[in-house]
């Protein structure tokens, strides 16, 4: 399961700070929502369910966007062990 590093600070307005590197990032509102769901330990299926209840979207595009988003989180080294279990 994908886990966000514990020391990463995420503000309610979508500002992300990595104290390990000093780098900061911004999230758009859906990015913030998804990162918080990941942080709360939800699986992909649960996240998909929650998001599709709230937003007008199809599962196929969501899957594409979700994995593109999480690959960016890995790329930016914001996930534990680069996201591997």
């Amino acid at each position: 399961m994908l886990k966000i590093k514990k020391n990463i600070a995420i503000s309610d307005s979508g500002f992300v700070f990595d104290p390990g590197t000093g780098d900061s990032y911004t999230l758009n509102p859906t990015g913030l929502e998804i990162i918080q769901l990941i942080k709360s330990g939800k699986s992909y299926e649960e996240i998909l369910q929650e998001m599709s209840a709230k937003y007008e979207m199809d599962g196929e595009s969501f899957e594409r966007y979700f994995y593109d988003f999480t690959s960016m989180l890995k790329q930016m080294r914001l996930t534990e062990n680069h996201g591997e279990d």
Partner: protein
Amino acid sequence: MTKLIFERPIIQQINAGLPSKYGMSHKLEPISHIDNVSIKSLIESYGSPLFIISESTIRKTYKNAFRAFSSRYPKVQFAWSYKTNYLNAVCNVFHQEGSWAEVVSGFEYDKALKNGVPGDLIIFNGPDKSREDLAKSIKNSSLIHIDHFDELYEIISLTKEIEVKPKVAIRVNMDTGIYPRWDRFGFNYENGEAWDALNRIMANKKLDLLGLHTHIGTYMMSTDAYKIAASKLAELAVRLQQKHGHVLQYIDMGGGFASKNTLKGAYYPGTDTTPSFDDFAEAITSALMSSEIKPDNLPLLILENGRALIDDAGYLAGSVLANKRLADGRRATIIDAGVNILFTAFWYEHDIRPVEPVSEQTEDTTIYGPLCMNIDVIRGNIMFPLLKKGDQYVIKRVGAYNNTQWLQFISMRPNVVLLDANGKPHLIRKNETLETINSQELTPEHLKNFDL
């Protein structure tokens, strides 16, 4: 309960780098219409990708350029540079506006004749004129701009066979203070070769020397260079009159004015840095007016601009094929137009926009064409909105050189549509098909069959 609109999730690093002090905006306004015609509907009717040319933009740009010169100088003539865009419909818009034709090969010469341009209003430039081309242009009383001594002697030898006196000018190259210096075309001014050529033509008496021509470079951002060039040509004209009593009918300043496209590596966008037609006109006409040429003998001023007159009128619209991530996490967007049809992507940071409004979010993106070739890059890095597969884009200012230098490589050249003054689309060049390509090929009998 109605659901909310979903925007794809994104995360972006905040870079505390050195932004431009003017803080140029990253937001790219969509362009949905050209001359009030929806780009989406044009793509639906004519396919993707598609070149779209605006006739009213051509006419407006022409009038603007011509006014800049004619309001400063008594006798001005434009000659349409065929190599910049020789689609017949485009050429004829310029001819309707009053342009003569400027051609640089036998093929372009025949194209101009076939479009209905009278032979004596065709300027024949360039280093490649065959004996047959020269004979034809002498008979048609075209204006032959001599590039080298071999050509001069070819014309002299043709005067023994043809009754008509050839109308000629020489092309002059010179130092105008710019780099690179173009010295491969014509006769050099500084080393005296141009003066030598003029004296030989005057001594021969079988040629009718009408003018002087120069073309100092391409995509010129400096108006001073034109001022220097015009002064040097004027000086040659004055010397000709002093020594031979010969009055030249015209001075042809060539073309080379920059368009508003941004060159690769430029710090500021071309829209901010390119001199206006008025700036170029002021430099050239003031040099001629203040020269020693007597007011009664002021020659006709000919200009052969191509790029600056047509670039703005051309658009290339198409669709996104796919998105992917590069090894470093950067976004890559693949579109259906490659460098094979957008040759100018090698020189310019083309202005590419979404056709419809998409999210406010942008990401550092590389835009690739569809070719299976590493060089097929339309924009190296651009803050670009997140277009999805199937979304449409439009690229501005592609009217110059693309419809002439495009290649049939890997895929076919697409349709070209002209929007007339009322916004009505006219197909002016059909897309190529497999049959177009195969019709030119011949397969030997023994290679027609094979077993696999």
